[in-house]
């Protein structure tokens, strides 16, 4: 800790740290020196306040979490180092494994389902002139701006034993399917999934709509002239053009699905039994209720690594490539002059 502090101080007072001048005697020394001279050291003053906040309240806590994750620690007495035991526990403890499994189920509801629904609707909308687009956009986006606690209260109300969902089921003669949706062992997890899908589908649609607006209409005309049907049109034009938006939609929905503390805390708190537990719930409970700080930290680190890995994967998989239709989607291309 102290060593980094002193080097940082040196760096601030001496524009070129002595180590950089004397430390390297091999080949590219002049270019290194000119590189260092080309940097604006005073620009660090602009960045420093923001970075200080980020370092103290984000980076430092992460470091401490990594440190704790290798200890058995109750927050009061001296911790004992346990190596990778906390991490082994994350993957072997049956309760934690179940929580990870619930997260996977919710991943389907929170990410896969909204993206598919959004794509389907966006695909349909790409074929017509939509009236009242601004209004639809604004209304579809409402679930995104509500506090998750409000969402939880509203859906608890909807899904209650005597709530509107059951009333409708009874009215259409499906009375035998009524249940306490969030209180039943079989329906609690999918019900939470439905809430998550509701929160996210509008976001996906709005994202995809903004992508569709950017597609050149003549691409569709050309495809139709060539006899492409709606399905062909969707897979050949709409889907490839929406690649960047799908990537963002997946990143936003997946991180929401894997974190997901607020919604579960305010609907089921992991119950009934342990049917709706998720990792972030155990992070909270182990850290602040069960005093198992080491295990809570290990679980939080695993959660972070999983999120970063999934985000990286999504970005790599959907990275924008030069796709075959690019030359059709950019009408103002220079090559056009030759033809005219």
């Amino acid at each position: 800790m102290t060593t980094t502090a002193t080097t940082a101080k040196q760096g601030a007072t001496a524009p070129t740290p002595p180590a950089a001048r004397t430390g390297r005697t091999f080949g590219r020394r002049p270019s290194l020196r000119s590189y260092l001279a080309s940097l604006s050291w005073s620009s660090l003053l602009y960045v420093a306040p923001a970075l200080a906040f980020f370092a103290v309240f984000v980076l430092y806590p992460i470091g401490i979490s990594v440190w704790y994750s290798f200890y058995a620690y109750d927050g009061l007495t001296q911790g004992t180092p346990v190596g990778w035991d906390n991490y082994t526990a994350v993957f072997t403890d049956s309760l934690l494994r179940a929580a990870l499994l619930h997260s996977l189920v919710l991943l389907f509801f929170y990410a896969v389902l909204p993206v598919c629904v959004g794509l389907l609707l966006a695909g349909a909308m790409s074929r017509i002139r939509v009236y009242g687009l601004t209004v639809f956009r604004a209304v579809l986006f409402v679930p995104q701006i509500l506090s998750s606690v409000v969402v939880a209260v509203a859906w608890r109300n909807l899904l209650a034993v005597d709530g509107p969902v059951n009333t409708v089921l009874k009215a259409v003669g499906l009375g035998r399917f009524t249940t306490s949706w969030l209180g039943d062992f079989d329906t609690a997890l999918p019900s939470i999934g439905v809430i998550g899908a509701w929160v996210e589908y509008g976001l996906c649609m709005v994202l995809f709509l903004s992508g569709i607006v950017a597609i050149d209409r003549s691409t569709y005309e050309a495809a139709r002239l060539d006899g492409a049907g709606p399905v062909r049109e969707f897979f050949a034009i709409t889907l490839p053009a929406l690649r960047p938006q799908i990537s963002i939609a997946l990143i936003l929905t997946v991180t929401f699905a894997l974190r997901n503390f607020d919604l579960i805390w305010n609907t089921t708190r992991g119950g009934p039994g342990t049917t709706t537990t998720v990792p972030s719930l155990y992070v909270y409970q182990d850290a602040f209720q069960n005093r198992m700080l080491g295990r809570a930290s290990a679980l939080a680190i695993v959660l972070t690594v999983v999120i970063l890995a999934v985000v990286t994967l999504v970005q790599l998989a959907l990275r924008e490539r030069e796709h075959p239709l690019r030359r059709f989607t950019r009408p103002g291309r220079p090559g056009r002059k030759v033809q005219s």
Partner: protein
Amino acid sequence: MRIARSESVATHALLVLAAIVAVFPLVSIVVSSLHGVAGSGGVSFAGYSTAWTQGRFGSALLSSALVAVTVVVVTVVLAALAGYALATMRVPGARLIVALLLVGLVLPYEVTVLPLYELLTGWHLVDTYGALILPQIALSIPLGVLWMRSFFAAVPVELLEAARIDGTSRLQSLRLVVLPIAGPALTTLSTVLFLFTWNEFLLALILVPDNASVQTVPLALSFFSGAARSSDPAVTAAAAVLVALPVLLAYVFLQRRLISGLTEGAVK
């Protein structure tokens, strides 16, 4: 090339259905909040007055406003400075800084909350506004800095060059040349950060658990609806509407900015 009228009608019908589904839960709590207490039938605002007095929502709304405004103002100032430097100057370690901020963008708060709690306990800040404000500034920094950086990067180089030739210092050109045209970018960023801070739940639950006078609206609603789970649903529903109302009102005026901020911001 025309599409059949029936297809247009069918798609619009689907859209209307999707829109109804999006607002139905909200409409349903508004309806149940207006049900008379004890189910007497007819419209009644009794639920609202009960919720307002029992749930201390007046104080919670003030806390939320104070916290959100402070976080937004401080973050925007810090983010403008840092984003300006990262976009227009040769900042040492710029790549590392940007990479760390990008990671910060998708980081689950869960990994920071426990050490944060201990840190702020040591500083005697738990259960004070400081515990809500300081970490939330830090958590808003990645979005803020990257947002401002991409805005400043789009400012024409000639503009800054011209200012430099006129003998303007870098800080002066930020204030006199760049900020005057940054209005829309700053407003959109502020709106998005305000929404995030206003709705933040987990940090409030952990960092101000035992002091009702600094608790924000989501936390107040969570405690209130948890305690009132068995009592009158009209009162809980009214409380939820009270919490949602300020955000919805702001949304009516700022929806364009908010939607573009939350969707295009991610595209950058």
